[in-house]
């Protein structure tokens, strides 16, 4: 048999580019992060009266930049470098690589422009508007074609486990992105998800949870399983453990999504299931961490001198810590305390700064000498980066864990007479300010560390040989007919023991090479992963979508008026959900503070849901009717004039910007398409109805002693929306509606026992 040796070289130019933008966008994302951290410590950094730089608009920019721009580009750099080498072939198509690169950067620029302008879908980590979402899907497909094309042309038959992780990432992110972003557009800059309320929440956190799993975990595990053995110059400790690690994420991780919604209005079985799986995730995640650390056994002396290994060791340790903490947070009694507090933010940042950030830095320091064919300019500076970064992480997470615990405990505290110990919300806010300043310092240290990486990058780049050499590699082509090495003959046969025939059959079954062949078939493998992911998602989601009893209707809940709908758009656009929840949990501490707990049936017209995930300000679900209209006008204009110590941004521009009346019928039409019962007459008369309601509110404001001439301003619509919030259940039931929907009164009223789960316990 003649084996043909082929010569080829890898495309490292694309890796260099992705590495550079990883650094650039990383710095941008961290800078915005630093700014939003400052805004919480001192609200003047919202720069009123400018509307573009408020916390509600910049926080999505921060999260999107670090997730999709920093982590995203880092993943691409790592994949493009390791895939070519693991498969001994250049990428499938240079054109596709370039399309992928430039397409992704354009998307990031589009995000950086639209988010400060308040163009958003209003769902966390899925804020980007539908045209950008389509672009993301297209570029992702380009990446996938390039990726699988490369696999098809490989010269190494076995797919190393890192590639499995990459495949899971590509498959799962596609599914998540498509299903969570199914929307009905109302113009280029507006859209509404096809799901409402509870269902939208379910989709959103199925997405949010798995985006963390499959964009911030699996690809980085692939990177870990490739770059860590490279840096230590040792094979991974246990390949078998890495395989189990992989299947755990694919089979079990997906199921654990609903834990993000504990104590909210979800059916109890769903969150119990999520909790069970989260706890099951514990062991293999730690297995993964140990697998990483034990890869270094015998190489620990190198850790002392090699900054790359230092970054990796800390990264993997943080992986273990956050994957331990994640399931912990899904335990109900812990979640009761941690949910809506900074605890979540601390958890996320130990994962983001520690695991993802440090792994990326380690990878870049390892790559630089190889990409630029010259030694790293200054290992000392890299060492300094490591220490600054570590101190930064510690300052950040220690202060923010403390903040989360402090506020969580204060919210739940009762005094001896049985009243809330801190009935005034802002008391709990003011207690956090010193910790917020510590976070600013920690974040700044981390950022300065990252800038040192930039210096090292620049200087290493300048010292590169010109032109860069293009190495030529050699490997035999993949033979078409491939036979496995024969498995050893069964001891059952050689020893001559007499056993039942079944034993021989079983023995042969297990010894044959079917599974090994199967592992080499990328298509089949990919389909397997896709099936596992989709099946888990469907089983988890379908029941909530289709079973009526899960969301009992409440007859008195009616669609928003046209003006309220316009106000809701402003609420979305300003990103109020970044600071305010709309979900009163069935706990005494919450019903005392906010009022009647929220029922699933109250959200049936909420496209998208606005339950929120963090209460930097108080819950707003029952704020309707709590204050006079004028209060809201004054409060939005200058929160600190009304509530001293508030850290809410001032929105004076809402009092001067005219309300967009033209879009009202368009928005109503989109909602009608989604199943909100607006009649055609309602839509035609939408603008007039809005004007009439606005006039009434503007009049009331003047009567209460407020300014004149607000009737056509944004603030009126926002006030209308805020005053409507949570008032439907106290409204008398409309008698006529009952016949129309054919509901019996028993159906119509939510059974609190059924819908709230075991919340009261």
């Amino acid at each position: 048999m003649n084996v043909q040796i082929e010569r080829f070289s890898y495309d490292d130019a694309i890796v260099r580019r992705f590495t550079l933008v990883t650094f650039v966008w990383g710095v941008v994302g961290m800078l915005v992060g630093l700014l939003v951290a400052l805004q919480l410590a001192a609200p003047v950094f919202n720069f009123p009266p400018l509307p573009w730089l408020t916390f509600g608009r910049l926080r999505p920019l921060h999260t999107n930049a670090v997730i999709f721009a920093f982590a995203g580009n880092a993943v691409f750099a790592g994949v493009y470098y390791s895939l070519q080498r693991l498969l001994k072939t250049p990428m499938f198509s240079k054109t596709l690589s370039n399309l992928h690169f430039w397409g992704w950067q354009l998307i990031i620029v589009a995000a950086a422009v639209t988010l400060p302008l308040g163009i958003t879908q209003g769902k966390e980590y899925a804020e980007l508007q539908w045209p950008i979402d389509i672009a993301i899907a297209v570029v992702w497909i380009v990446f996938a074609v390039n990726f699988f094309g490369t696999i098809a042309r490989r010269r190494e038959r076995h797919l190393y486990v890192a590639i499995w992780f990459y495949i899971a990432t590509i498959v799962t992110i596609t599914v998540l992105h498509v299903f969570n972003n199914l929307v009905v557009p109302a113009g280029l800059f507006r859209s509404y998800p096809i799901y409402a309320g509870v269902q939208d929440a379910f989709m959103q956190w199925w997405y949010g949870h798995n985006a963390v799993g499959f964009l911030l975990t699996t690809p980085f595990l692939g990177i870990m399983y490739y770059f860590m053995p490279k840096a230590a110059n040792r094979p991974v400790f246990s390949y078998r453990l890495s395989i189990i690690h992989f299947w755990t994420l694919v089979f079990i991780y997906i199921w654990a999504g609903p834990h993000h919604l504990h104590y909210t209005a979800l059916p109890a079985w769903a969150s119990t299931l999520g909790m069970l799986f989260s706890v099951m995730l514990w062991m293999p995640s730690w297995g993964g961490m140990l697998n990483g650390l034990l890869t270094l056994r015998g190489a620990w002396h190198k850790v002392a001198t090699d900054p790359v290994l230092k970054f990796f060791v800390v990264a993997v340790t943080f992986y273990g810590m956050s994957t331990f903490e994640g399931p912990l947070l899904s335990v109900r009694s812990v979640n009761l305390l941690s949910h809506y507090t900074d605890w979540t933010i601390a958890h996320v940042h130990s994962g983001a700064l520690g695991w993802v950030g440090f792994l990326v830095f380690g990878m870049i320091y390892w790559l630089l000498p190889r990409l630029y064919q010259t030694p790293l300019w200054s290992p000392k500076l890299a060492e300094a980066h490591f220490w600054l970064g570590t101190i930064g992480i510690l300052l950040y997470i220690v202060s923010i864990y403390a903040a989360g615990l402090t506020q969580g405990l204060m919210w739940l505290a009762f005094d001896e007479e049985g009243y809330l110990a801190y009935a005034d919300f802002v008391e709990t806010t003011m207690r956090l300010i010193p910790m917020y300043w510590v976070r600013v310092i920690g974040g700044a240290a981390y950022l300065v560390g990252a800038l040192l990486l930039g210096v090292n990058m620049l200087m290493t780049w300048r010292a590169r040989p010109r032109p860069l050499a293009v190495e030529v590699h050699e490997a035999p082509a993949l033979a078409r007919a491939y036979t496995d090495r024969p498995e050893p003959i069964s001891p059952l046969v050689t020893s001559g023991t007499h056993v039942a025939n079944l034993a021989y059959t079983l023995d042969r079954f297990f010894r044959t090479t079917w599974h090994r062949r199967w592992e080499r078939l990328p298509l089949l493998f990919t389909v397997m992963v896709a099936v596992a992911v989709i099946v888990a998602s469907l089983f988890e989601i379908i029941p909530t979508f289709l079973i009526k009893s899960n969301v009992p209707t409440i007859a008195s809940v009616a669609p928003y008026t046209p003006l309220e709908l316009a106000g809701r758009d402003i609420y979305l656009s300003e990103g109020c959900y970044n600071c305010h929840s709309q979900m009163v949990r069935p706990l005494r501490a919450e019903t005392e503070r906010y009022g009647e707990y929220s029922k699933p049936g109250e959200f049936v017209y909420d496209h998208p849901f606005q339950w929120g995930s963090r209460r930097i300000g108080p819950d707003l679900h029952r704020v309707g009717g709590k204050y006079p209209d004028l209060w809201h006008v004054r409060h939005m204009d200058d929160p600190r004039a009304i509530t001293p110590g508030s850290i809410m941004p001032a929105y004076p521009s809402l009092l001067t910007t005219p309300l967009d009346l033209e879009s009202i019928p368009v928005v109503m039409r989109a909602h009608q398409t989604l199943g909100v019962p607006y009649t055609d007459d309602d839509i035609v008369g939408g603008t007039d109805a809005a004007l009439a309601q606005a006039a009434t509110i503007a009049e009331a404001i003047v009567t209460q002693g407020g300014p004149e001439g607000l009737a056509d301003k944004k603030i009126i619509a926002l006030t209308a929306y805020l005053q409507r919030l949570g008032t439907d259940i106290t409204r008398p039931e409309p008698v006529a509606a009952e016949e129309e929907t054919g509901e019996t009164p028993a159906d119509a009223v939510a059974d609190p026992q059924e819908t709230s789960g075991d919340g009261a316990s």
Partner: protein
Amino acid sequence: MKLSDIMGAAGLASWAEIGLVVSFITFAAIVLYVFVIRSRASYEDARHLPLDDDPEIPS
């Protein structure tokens, strides 16, 4: 909503449990296969793949 009536009557509530059990069994089967049935030695080649590169580094 007619669809929800149909699906509601179809007893889909148990799907979640079935899916859970199926996933769990598959997962357990994989663990069994990887750790018990297949020998560690058969993974040695794959384990060394990342290091099976050309010698390199200027440092």
